């Protein structure tokens, strides 16, 4: 307590003077040549060094200076070490990470990273930068979270960088529903399952529209006999549950418009990655400038390089690929010792990896994980993830287990001068798969559905697969030469918004995964129609709150609600729904009435089937139900299988609306029916400390809109780059440059972000040292 309260040691030391001068002269041991850091009025550092290594070294130093606790906390989470900080509550979370093979995968990634001299130098310099900061850190300067939780930072390492990147892979390429799917298929039958979770959508507008893919596939995949019939027929129920499932909402928008469609005649590139929103933010903005490159954009505290941004020649960004790259195999062990498993007709020895989970009281919990040819046996008798007991042995095969050198893609893009450089750079990205977008000053635009993906047969990996032989294993990776891309298309723009990358019905490999179709539809509609596009138009588009899903669904609701038989209360909400302008505006009650009504309909339609499969709450995506009732008013799922009568669309919708009105009335009475209040956007501190969070952000936007702000999720960085001779760029993220809750720079961007404002992004020149935007200078020399 004394330690924490002491004004000269404890939290008071984190109360940063609001007018603090960040300027200083530093002597750092790992630096090769003198360097300068100019901090601007938003505390964005503009780093000028004499070589690449120094740039990454100073980047590491600055990340640690402003975001140390977050960097370390995220790698603790990635490595399954939360128990060390919070005790027994963290054990299940930690075991899940260990058993998924997070540390194992990160170790393999480090080996790959260190094999290449370029990425090794980069990672080493970054690590040295972080550690220089940590080594010179006085106790009073420790971030407040260390003081609260009572621990101290460890030294950084390349492994921690790799762990952070695996953490991103888990967030972006870790979503699948194999257990839910297996249970639904098993208990409802394959035919019913296929209707609830179809492999395509009616409203399809894939990222790669033209048929640029009509070459013979390099791999011919063959489904094993019986995979679509005998297997999983009413026999198997999986009772495992993930401790923490990656978000289903991860998505993003990006688009690039060619000069023929813009006012300036130069391309414009836009990107807004939708991710979980936290404080301190996932992103840290900076400019890195050295003789070999000059890049500006957002960086990941925890990894070197600029991730989404631009350099002197081009701009680049990403959206998530959404494909399913994590599958499970049921393993047959000889006995409980797990020493041998049956594979291809013989008993095969298992490898064991001992995971030492250290508890807060320093005692150890040793988890012995069996490794098979498929991957680690994640679930077994001792670990089911959730509440239910599990007796099956389930091994996980995850694409992120494979060694890749993802640092090289950012290194390549930061240095890229043209389309060829871009193309070569993105090939480094294996996992997580991303739609990598590009535009350059010489007028090129392009998008690539990049990643290394398994070549799958129809529905491969949607269900738990038998692991007794190789017949269900991945048969190979789709060759990089077949990666779908478009380059300078005639229509004058490229875009992606997590829709299908290609037409799933004609693409030679099965994609897997869940896709969002609506944002892509309206982005493409807008971009095809508009010409003479300026930066303000792009801002308006990124902030657009039109709900295209409601645009298609509301007419059916209105047509079927029996307005003549409504009570006065019901009529009131019917009118609100009817007169809503289909935009997710903060004050729009109609947006809330629509959502509550739709959710109520969704429950009425699906709950009976889901209950039968014991998968309550696991709803099919909304487009499935909407397209089902648009196609056929006697859609089979409208019937409640638990009643003798056959319910109709009209009955379901009226029941749904009546139920919804009851909810709406209560919310309305408490003044919480406006969309902004219902959505209740919050930006939570990483350790869920409420006073360090920003709660109750009352803003516009919603899941189906381009401006996809949700409850704890949304546009984590909005960026617009116009590639005129002098680049004109704008951006904002919901956070602040400092990770210190006691700093004015902790959350100073949040209100402007919520209100749809942008900051001009300043690509500073070395000779602008005296510009009034420079608020402090850190001069660094070699120690």
């Amino acid at each position, binding site marked *: 307590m004394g330690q924490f309260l*002491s004004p*000269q040691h404890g939290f*008071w*030391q984190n109360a*940063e003077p*609001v007018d603090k001068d960040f300027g200083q002269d530093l002597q750092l041991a790992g630096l090769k040549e003198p360097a300068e850091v100019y901090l601007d009025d938003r505390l964005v550092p503009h780093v000028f060094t004499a070589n690449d290594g120094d740039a990454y070294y100073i980047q590491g130093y600055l990340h640690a200076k402003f975001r140390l606790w977050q960097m370390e906390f995220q790698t603790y989470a990635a490595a399954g070490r939360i128990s060390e900080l919070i005790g027994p509550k963290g054990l299940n979370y930690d075991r899940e990470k260990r058993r998924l093979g997070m540390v194992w995968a990160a170790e393999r990634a480090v080996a790959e990273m260190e094999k290449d001299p370029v990425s090794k130098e980069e990672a080493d310099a970054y690590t040295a930068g972080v550690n220089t900061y940590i080594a010179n850190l006085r106790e009073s300067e420790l971030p*407040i979270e260390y003081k609260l939780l009572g621990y101290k930072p460890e030294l950084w390492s390349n492994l921690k960088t790799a762990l952070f990147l695996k953490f991103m892979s888990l967030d972006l390429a870790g979503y699948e529903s194999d257990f839910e799917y297996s249970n639904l298929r098993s208990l409802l039958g394959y035919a019913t399952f296929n209707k609830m979770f179809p492999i395509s959508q009616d409203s399809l507008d894939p990222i790669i529209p033209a048929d640029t893919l009509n070459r013979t596939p390099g791999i011919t995949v063959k489904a094993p006999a019986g995979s679509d019939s005998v297997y999983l027929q009413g026999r198997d129920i999986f009772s495992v549950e993930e401790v923490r499932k990656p978000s289903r909402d991860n998505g993003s928008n990006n688009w690039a418009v060619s000069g023929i469609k813009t006012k300036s005649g130069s391309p414009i590139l836009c990107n807004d990655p939708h991710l979980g929103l936290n404080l301190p933010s996932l992103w840290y903005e900076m400019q890195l400038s050295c003789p070999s490159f000059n890049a500006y954009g957002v960086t990941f505290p925890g990894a070197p390089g600029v991730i989404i941004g631009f350099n002197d020649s081009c701009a680049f960004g990403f959206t998530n690929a959404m494909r399913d790259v994590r599958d499970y195999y049921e393993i047959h062990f000889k006995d409980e010792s797990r020493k041998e498993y049956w594979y291809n007709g013989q008993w095969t020895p298992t490898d064991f990896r001992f995971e030492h989970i250290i508890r807060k009281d320093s005692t150890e919990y040793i988890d012995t994980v069996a490794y098979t040819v498929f991957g680690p046996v994640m679930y077994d008798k001792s670990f089911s993830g959730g509440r239910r007991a599990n007796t099956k042995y389930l091994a996980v095969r995850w694409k992120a287990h494979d060694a890749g050198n993802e640092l090289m893609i950012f290194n390549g893009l930061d240095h890229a001068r043209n389309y060829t450089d871009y193309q070569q750079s993105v090939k480094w990205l294996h996992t997580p798969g991303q739609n990598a977008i590009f535009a350059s000053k010489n007028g090129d635009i392009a998008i690539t559905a990049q990643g290394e993906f398994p070549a799958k047969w129809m529905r491969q990996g949607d269900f738990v697969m038998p692991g007794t032989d190789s017949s269900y294993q991945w048969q190979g990776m789709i060759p990089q030469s077949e990666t779908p891309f478009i380059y300078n298309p005639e229509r004058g723009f490229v875009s992606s918004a997590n829709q299908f990358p290609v037409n799933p019905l004609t693409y030679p490999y099965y994609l897997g995964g869940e896709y969002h179709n609506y944002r892509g539809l309206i982005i493409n509609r807008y971009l095809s129609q508009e010409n003479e596009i300026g930066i303000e138009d792009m801002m308006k588009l990124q902030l657009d709150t039109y709900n295209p899903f409601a645009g298609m669904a509301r007419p059916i609701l209105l047509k079927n609600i029996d307005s003549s038989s409504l009570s006065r209360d019901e009529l009131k909400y019917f009118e609100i729904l009817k007169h809503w302008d289909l935009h997710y505006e903060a004050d729009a009650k109609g947006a809330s009435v629509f959502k509550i009504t739709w959710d109520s309909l969704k429950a009425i339609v699906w709950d009976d089937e889901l209950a039968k499969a014991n998968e309550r709450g696991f709803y099919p995506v909304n487009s499935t139900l909407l397209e089902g009732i648009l196609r056929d008013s006697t859609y089979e799922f409208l019937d409640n299988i638990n009643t003798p009568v056959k319910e109709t669309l009209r009955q379901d919708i009226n029941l749904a609306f009546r139920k919804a009105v009851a909810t709406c009335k209560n919310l309305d009475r408490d003044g919480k029916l406006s969309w902004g209040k219902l959505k209740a956007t919050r930006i939570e501190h990483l350790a869920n400390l409420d*006073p360090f969070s920003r709660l109750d952000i009352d803003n516009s936007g919603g899941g189906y809109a381009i401006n996809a702000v949700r409850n704890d999720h949304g546009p984590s960085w909005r960026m617009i780059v116009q590639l005129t001779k002098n680049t004109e760029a704008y951006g904002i993220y919901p956070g602040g440059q400092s990770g210190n809750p006691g700093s004015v720079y902790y959350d100073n961007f949040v209100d402007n972000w919520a209100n749809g404002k942008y900051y001009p992004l300043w690509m500073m020149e070395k000779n602008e040292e005296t510009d009034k935007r420079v608020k402090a200078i850190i001069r660094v020399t070699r120690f």
Partner: protein
Amino acid sequence: MSQDFKFMSKYILSIIVTALLAFVSGLYMPWWGIAVVAFLVSAAIPQRPAFSFLSGFLGVFLLWEVLAWWIDNKNNGILSQKVSSLFGMGSSTVLLIVITSILGALVAGFAALAGSYLRRLIYPGPTAVTP
């Protein structure tokens, strides 16, 4: 020169010396440097135990009060409000500053008390009971 004045000047001197040395200790030592300082000061400047306690208490109380207030003022109360509500005290900055100072003051006060008893143990006799 009256006894009263001598007593008062010792008392005030103890407070000032405790505060000053406690501040210096904060620059070089862990937070419990305040206890060491209060202990040594009261061992060096003989007073009755109750007054030793009070001078240690007040020395650090004043130091921490001023420091916390100064820091908080420069910070516009950004962090103190957050920490207050983290400990369920609403957003009362004043209360947090007072709690901070009292905690430091109590630690220093008891350390001073111990120092004064130690001195009595080593130098028993009238010097220890001046007033």
